[in-house]
């Protein structure tokens, strides 16, 4: 569904992505992990067209996304730090997004209900805590029933209850056959959600494996341990 072809991105002299090649198919839930500053967010933003790659191309359903915008109708994006106009209330933001999208599709308002956002609909965004802002971001990402969900650190800042709700929602959407891309640092949280894992380091893809492969090759039960083992082996080399 999404193909990333030989993407490189430089910010000035700093090389953030270096010849990245990846393919994502629907029905998968893919975790993108790696140390801070390894280019995860830049990779995601180039899929969204927010960052324009220096070299290479991104294909969405076999069509290049460079300079296009319609394909974003099929993407729901939850940013790492959702930043919204301060003066607007939660209700206004949601209303505005509905107007901007102007879609006739049925809306998915599950998260509004389970996060109990209706109670705080008239709260301005600037008074919200980081976690509540994340809840709004998550709600907006899922609202229009997109085929692809891109979630940048979705559970960071959420309380255990909320992150459990979000995890359940992610699993539910995966079972519907959607493509879900998650970046995260919390490996322990990923266990029952994801089907594939991509490890990035210094702008390059270190490995791209299915979870079964990963666990089998390392003889471990948990993703976190398996990754730790691989990293240790690499250090010893």
């Amino acid at each position, binding site marked *: 569904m999404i193909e990333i072809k030989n993407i490189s991105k430089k910010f000035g002299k700093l090389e953030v992505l270096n010849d990245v090649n990846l393919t994502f198919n629907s029905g998968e839930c893919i975790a993108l992990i790696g140390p801070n500053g390894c280019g995860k967010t830049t990779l995601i*933003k180039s899929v969204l067209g927010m960052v*324009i790659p220096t070299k290479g191309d991104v294909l969405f359903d076999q069509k290049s996304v460079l300079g296009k915008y319609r394909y974003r109708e099929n993407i729901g994006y939850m940013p790492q730090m959702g930043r*919204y106009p301060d003066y607007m209330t939660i209700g206004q933001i949601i209303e505005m997004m509905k107007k901007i999208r102007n879609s006739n599709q049925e809306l998915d308002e599950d998260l509004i209900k389970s996060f109990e956002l209706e109670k705080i609909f008239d709260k301005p965004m600037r008074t919200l805590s980081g976690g509540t802002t994340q809840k709004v971001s998550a709600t907006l990402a899922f609202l229009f029933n997109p085929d692809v969900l891109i979630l940048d650190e979705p559970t960071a800042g959420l309380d255990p209850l909320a992150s459990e709700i979000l995890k359940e929602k992610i699993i539910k959407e995966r079972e519907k056959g959607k493509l879900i891309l998650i970046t995260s640092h919390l490996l322990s949280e990923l266990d029952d959600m994801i089907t594939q894992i991509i490890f990035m380091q210094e702008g390059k893809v270190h490995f791209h494996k299915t979870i079964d492969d990963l666990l089998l090759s390392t003889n471990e039960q948990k993703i976190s341990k398996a990754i730790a083992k691989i990293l240790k082996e690499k250090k010893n080399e």
Partner: protein
Amino acid sequence: MNRIIKIILLDILKNKIIIGYTLILGLLSWSSFGLEDNSAKGLLTILNVILFTVPLVSILFATIYLYNSSEFIELLLSQPIKRKKIWLSLFFGLSLSMVLAFIIGAGIPLLIYAADSIGIMMLIVGCLISVVFVALAFLCSILTRDKAKGIGIVIMTWLYFALLFDGIVLFLLFQLSDYPIEKAMVLITAFSPIDLARIQILLHLDQSAMMGYTGAIFKDFFGTTLGLILSFSLLCLWVVIPFFISLRKFKYKDL
């Protein structure tokens, strides 16, 4: 596009600064017309408002608004909307609200007290100057991500057009007074939207006699229909060129 323009326009019109700006423009215009029997003096006061206040408020407000909506722009970019559309909507929203503030604040008294060709011309020039400086704000704010730097650039731009440019022109006039530079002066005015507006209106106020021989040359040039059309198209170019440079830059900006 209309949906986004509407959202932006409603947001700006709710802004207290814009309401205050409209009120101050109104206060200045009504009082300057009310104090004198002679509408020409009132017109001169409004001319000064057009030449100093309108550019300053337009460029500063638009720049600060653009920097403050960086979150909003980011949010829109992750949605199925063309980049060009986002930038154009912001431009139309800001221009429309500045023009609206000018028309309500200064335009109504102008039309009541001086409903002749000069009054109408002043209204058009005021609107154009508002839009020119909104376009310049777009150019300045795309040049740097840093808000403080951006506002600094904007204030320098305003100072340059409102004060420095005149100084340079005067300096040239005195230094080169032995040479026949009057025709060149006509060309030089094209490099400042404020001067274009000033000369255009002064000539129609019959104050050109105060400008001496240069004034006569100006009258010869700007007084004709061709000159009028040319100077208005030059003002329009001052809108189009800065905005299109900023649009090109915005299309390739990383957010």
